């Protein structure tokens, strides 16, 4: 209950303070004993009141806004010092049988000083916290910028880029028209990845066009191993979605949804309900037997998507990851329709 400092204060500093007060006030009033007793009574009355404040008032004002809390706290401290002094003086008066009015004038400055000291302490604390908040904000800004850069990097997967360049290097010799088409698609993909980042939203159709081009290139690399089924509801075309929101999920499905021979069967379906656009991405891979965190790659992609959805829609979105029937993984995004 009591800390070492409390004990020290109660047993050493308070009696010494009362003694000092007794000497000074006694010097002027000529009554040392009375002054010392008044000091002691006042000081311990204040201690009792402050302890009561700590016990009963502080827990109650914990939830209030900070400024109000501090003002109430300082006010209560003022009040308890005043009351403490008056009660202390009354006690002394009862003890000695007479009342020395002069002592009030010596005690009052003390009553003002202690709460003033509190005020200064609070002010210093406020200032420190303000600085801390500023620093924190700067740190957060730096973190956000870093996160954005990382997200961009993740979307333009270097591995995908260099593999596609390798495919193109091959096709220039064996099948120049196909090489040409591949280069065009790669350009489309990079243009979209670079410039759509600046927009808050794009029509789903555009995002799907990008995904289609991306899958076309992956098909060049995967060959027969990649099978894609798209089922896009017509009425979903114009719904707004955050750009590049689907690509990490599709990439996850390609990477982690591979069957025993490395084959991938990817399904992408969109549908519209009263309030939400739903996009489902399914694979027929081994599924996630264990928690997502254990598939490091998948984890990062999903986290990026979740963060971006949260930044755009607050709580108004859904991102569900679960088993697909009969096997594999299913990810479903729900985005509020009509909103941005």
């Amino acid at each position, binding site marked *: 209950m009591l800390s070492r400092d409390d004990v020290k204060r109660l047993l050493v500093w308070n009696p010494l303070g009362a003694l000092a007060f007794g000497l000074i006030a006694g010097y002027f009033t000529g009554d040392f004993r009375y002054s010392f007793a008044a000091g002691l009574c006042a000081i311990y009355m204040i201690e009792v009141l402050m302890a009561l404040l700590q016990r009963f008032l502080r827990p109650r004002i914990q939830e209030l806004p900070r400024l109000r809390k501090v003002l109430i706290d300082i006010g209560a401290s003022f009040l308890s010092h005043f009351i403490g002094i008056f009660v202390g003086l009354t006690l002394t008066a009862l003890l000695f049988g007479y009342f020395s009015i002069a002592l009030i004038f010596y005690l009052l400055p003390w009553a003002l000083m202690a709460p003033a000291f509190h005020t200064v302490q609070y002010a210093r604390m406020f200032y420190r916290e303000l600085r801390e908040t500023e620093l924190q904000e700067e740190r957060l800004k730096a973190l956000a910028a870093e996160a954005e850069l990382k997200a961009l990097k993740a979307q333009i997967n270097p*591995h995908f880029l*260099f593999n596609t*360049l*390798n495919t193109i290097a*091959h096709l220039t010799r064996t099948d120049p028209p196909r090489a040409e088409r591949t280069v065009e698609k790669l350009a489309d993909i990079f243009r979209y990845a670079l410039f759509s980042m600046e927009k808050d939203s794009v029509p789903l159709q555009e995002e799907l066009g990008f995904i289609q081009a991306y899958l076309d290139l992956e098909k060049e690399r995967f060959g027969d191993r990649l099978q894609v089924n798209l089922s896009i509801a017509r009425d979903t075309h114009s719904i707004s979605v955050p750009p590049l929101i689907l690509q990490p999920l599709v990439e996850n499905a390609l990477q982690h949804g591979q069957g025993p*021979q*490395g084959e991938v069967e990817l399904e992408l379906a969109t549908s519209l309900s009263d309030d939400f656009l739903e996009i489902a991405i399914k694979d027929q891979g081994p599924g996630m037997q264990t928690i997502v965190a254990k598939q490091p790659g998948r984890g990062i992609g999903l986290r990026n998507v979740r963060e971006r959805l949260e930044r755009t829609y607050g709580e108004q979105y859904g991102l569900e990851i679960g088993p697909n029937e009969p096997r594999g993984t299913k990810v479903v995004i729900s985005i509020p329709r009509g909103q941005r």
Partner: protein
Amino acid sequence: MKLRTLIVDDEAPARERLRRLLAGNELIELVGEAKDGVEAVEMIEETSPDLVLLDIQMPVLDGFGVIEALREPPAIIFVTAYDEYAIRAFEVNALDYLLKPFSQERLNKAMERAQEELSTGQEFADRIGPLLESLREEKRYTERVAVREPDRILVLDVEEIDWIEARQGQVVVHVGQEEHVLARTLADLEARLDPTLFFRAHRSVIVNLDRVKEIIPWFAGSHKLRLTTGAEVDLSRSRGKALRETLGW
């Protein structure tokens, strides 16, 4: 003498390109192509090539998984599109690697270098241990382990593994009631496993921490670990201290 060479890549265009670029090379005799890691292990064992051009990112069993599955890996030139961690590991161990798309000149140079090194008898196998160690330092842990069974190659997800023991010069991997024998050292395998999941409990035992159910005090400060499968393994006194720190028990 021509180098008998095997191409391993899961992407058909990449294999074709490599084949075309190697076509005119007098140092090389192509002995085959594998389109995934498991096929690569089989073909290397069948044809015992002098040199393998090995892609790293492949489904199911990646390039490192292939090397780990081999008793005596041949000389290898790694091929990758992009893998900064692996590249650092190669550089540390002075192993040759090709970055896709690579030029004809770069490929030729790699072949000449391979020819030289093989003729001076530098053993690629000697560099495998350090390579695996560097990969661990780059936090590139293996996700799958290939096991050579008499009639097939079995690929295990490391998360399926309950515990691993060194027994009479062999490494035995325990998965449920099954036992699989690997032809490698416990230290090599440990070098490739994620230390936050796999813990060396004893000189000859590595245990999957997810499977530890009970830690039972034993004699002289040692312990026994009882696993969810019911198996019991020894935990030495010194490793017990390390485990105490890891799990905070």
